[in-house]
């Protein structure tokens, strides 16, 4: 799966926001409030990837404690992106 559109990520009013840069994107898909982890996952989703690969990348790039359910976290964020209709699977 990968993102349908190009996104830029920037801070506005203390909130990180991902904004689709495309002529064809609907308003509800255009702005997505995210956090640092969301920004990292969106970066990975610029290219075709899987939940498994994203989880593996997070475990490699960040110090993750044993009790953190990374897969659940990634799945929750992917679900948010699906609701915004910005993913192509």
């Amino acid at each position, binding site marked *: 799966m990968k993102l349908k559109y*190009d996104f*830029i990520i*920037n*801070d*506005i*009013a*203390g*909130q990180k*926001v991902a*904004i689709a*840069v*495309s*002529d064809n*994107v609907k308003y509800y898909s255009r*702005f997505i409030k995210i956090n640092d982890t969301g920004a990292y996952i969106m970066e990975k989703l610029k290219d075709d990837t899987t939940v498994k690969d994203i989880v593996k990348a997070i475990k490699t790039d960040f110090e993750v404690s044993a009790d953190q359910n990374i897969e659940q976290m990634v799945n929750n964020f992917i679900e948010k992106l699906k609701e915004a209709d910005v993913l192509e699977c």
Partner: protein
Amino acid sequence: MICRIADFNIEFKNLSQFASKRFLPFKSDSSPMVSFSVSKKEIATHKKLISNIHNENVLEFTLFQNKVSEWLPLNNTIYLHAALIDIEGTGVAFAALSGTGKTTHILLWQKLLGDKLIIVNGDRPFIRFFENEKYPYGYGTPWCGKENFGTTGRVPLKHLCFIERGEKNTCIPLKPSEVLEDILKQAYIPRNDPQAAFNAVTLINKMLNTCNLWKITCNMDLEAAEVAYNTIFKEQNNEA
């Protein structure tokens, strides 16, 4: 035609009579820093996407605005869907969704303040940021709404108000975080150029952190303008 808009010299090519008339007050003899043209094909494509505008001249005029708006953030400027007024050198912008009553509200302010007030732009001012200036400047543009209210002038933008209709008239200060959803609807973020889109968000953020932000709930009585004006300018006089 070369126009000076927001202190930029911009060339608009192959204009219809409709667009020429609206650009005319901004006409300049200087050499342009950028040129825009709109093709018949672009008008035809846009016509299919926009259901509420059928006139091709109006579509051409709107497409010129879209093209300029894509370019502005690369030059420290954004376009805001708002009505901008100048009250003795202080700029106040009123942002709201179409149909909320921006024009009705600024006409109440005009009734209240008379000659002290100039309508700089009734619908789509450009907001330009300069180094070493505390406030951005709001500029008149050719795109000034169906009433055609506007000038070619500019004013430091000190207050940004978000209007909603209500029975009682109130005016309360807001924090930037409280206007996030609204500003994303009212400020234009480019759709074609990632760098321009990124810059636009940076400039919008700067505007929210620089200007005083207000929520105005208003009806259509003169009291609506009195309450908002007294609240905003009392605050400003206290600051001075």
